[in-house]
């Protein structure tokens, strides 16, 4: 979108809507009586503050502050595990704002415009969308991994059956409560707490062992659903953030690799009790923030780089469901030290599958 396209009130009927009747200045400040742009934009807020604007009527808007999209707690959670207080403060001073905060969203960035990180701009002439357009908001940001997986844009990898056969957009699973942070307790990261939604919310029969002979208890209780039903997915490596001489933030990242790895769950909980999980490589390395200071991730080894994942390319039949030997006795599919780069061997000790723990071959 060009600059003017992002701010044009193209919807003539907007003024007659309940939001339109509030008047521009009510939410955006500024001076609506001025003729000149500079004067009109004096003290203007491009992005209204939810607590002051939306919350007047939408009384649950304040809970947006618990939304991970708003708090970015998932980012700080990961950083805190790899940093000290001192190095964390260095990162937060500039690097976080330059490279991470763009993902922060507000009410308007889904319901009125495109998210800032996806280019911003009114999505429908300032019309308020109760259900934001998925392609502009959800996959506008979650593009390179989730959208490509979900819609089958990775070459040779089919799309998720929930999309192609179920016709299910993102919000069928990722509910309003989740987006608005109406969850107690408020999550610290996206996989905090129980799966939301759990597969068995719809596929209850699996718990009873129905659907396939492999759905017997030893598998159901010990194997994450995605281990059998996800296709290959993107793994990213070595992201380094920095600024240009002009002060423009940017990043450099190594090419991604399509792969599939089963690892050990380093954080078994009641909500996620499986021993075997799908793990995806995150593009962090000890020098990710090197531009901003030395050794800013001194506790790098305290958190794996191969992380619990839920690839959005679910299939009924995958390479794992072909036969028992797809997993049993198949070392290649399990994460091993051979899959690790030198700097991350220590960090992934709790995830790597020792050879003697690989399920023994079984006949079928």
């Amino acid at each position, binding site marked *: 979108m060009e*600059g003017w396209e992002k701010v044009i009130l193209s919807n003539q009927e907007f003024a007659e809507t309940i939001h339109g009747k509030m008047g521009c200045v009510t939410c955006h400040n500024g001076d609506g009586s001025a003729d000149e742009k500079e004067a009109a934009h004096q003290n203007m807020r491009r992005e209204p503050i939810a607590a002051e604007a939306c919350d007047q009527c939408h009384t649950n808007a304040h809970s947006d502050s618990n939304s991970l999209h708003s708090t970015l707690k998932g980012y700080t959670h990961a950083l805190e595990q790899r940093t000290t207080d001192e190095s964390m403060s260095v990162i937060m001073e500039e690097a976080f704002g330059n490279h991470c905060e763009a993902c922060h969203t507000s009410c308007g960035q889904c319901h009125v415009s495109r998210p800032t990180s996806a280019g911003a701009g009114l999505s429908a002439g300032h019309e308020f969308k109760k259900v934001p357009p998925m392609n502009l908001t959800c996959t506008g940001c979650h593009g390179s991994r989730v959208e490509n997986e979900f819609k089958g844009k990775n070459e040779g990898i089919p799309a998720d059956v929930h999309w192609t056969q179920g016709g299910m957009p993102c919000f069928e699973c990722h509910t309003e409560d989740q987006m608005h942070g109406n969850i107690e307790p408020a999550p610290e990261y996206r996989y905090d707490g129980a799966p939301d939604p759990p597969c068995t919310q719809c596929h209850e029969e699996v718990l009873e062992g129905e659907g396939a002979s492999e759905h017997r208890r030893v598998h159901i209780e010990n194997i994450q659903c995605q281990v059998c039903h996800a296709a290959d997915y993107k793994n990213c490596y070595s992201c380094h953030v920095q600024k*240009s001489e002009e002060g423009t933030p940017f*990043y450099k990242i190594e090419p991604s690799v399509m792969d599939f790895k089963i690892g050990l769950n380093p954080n078994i909980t009641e909500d996620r009790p499986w021993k075997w999980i799908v793990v995806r490589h995150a593009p962090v390395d000890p020098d990710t923030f090197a531009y901003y200071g030395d050794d800013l991730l001194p506790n790098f080894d305290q958190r794996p780089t191969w992380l619990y994942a839920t690839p959005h390319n679910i299939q009924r039949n995958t390479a794992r469901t072909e036969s028992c030997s797809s997993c049993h006795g198949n070392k290649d599919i399990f994460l091993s030290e051979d899959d690790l780069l030198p700097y991350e061997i220590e960090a992934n000790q709790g995830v790597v599958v020792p050879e003697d723990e690989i399920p023994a071959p079984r006949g079928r």
Partner: protein
Amino acid sequence: MVKNLHLLKSAGVVLLLFGLALVVISCDSLAPAPPTHPSGQDPMENWESFDAMVATPEPTRVPIAVVPPPTPTKVPTPTPPPAIMAPDDGCVTCHSSEEMLKETAKEEEVAEVLSEGEG
């Protein structure tokens, strides 16, 4: 029986009135002669002198009561008028015009994308 009572009552009233009349007449005849005023005049014929004779106390001046004005009838408090919305004609005029926006809505020059690799 009732009629007889009424007759008796009526007769009684008549007798009473007759008696009163006799008393008045007799009192009048017994009324002393009016005092002879030294001037020989009947003071009663001269009201001014009569007034002089009759000492009447000065009337106590009573402050005129100040009657407060009537309390006005309370008008029902009207519903507060809707807050006067800040005018936004300027906003709408500009932001509805493609021509105006093309001229004024210029984004900062986009820095060359320096990032390498997929995000």
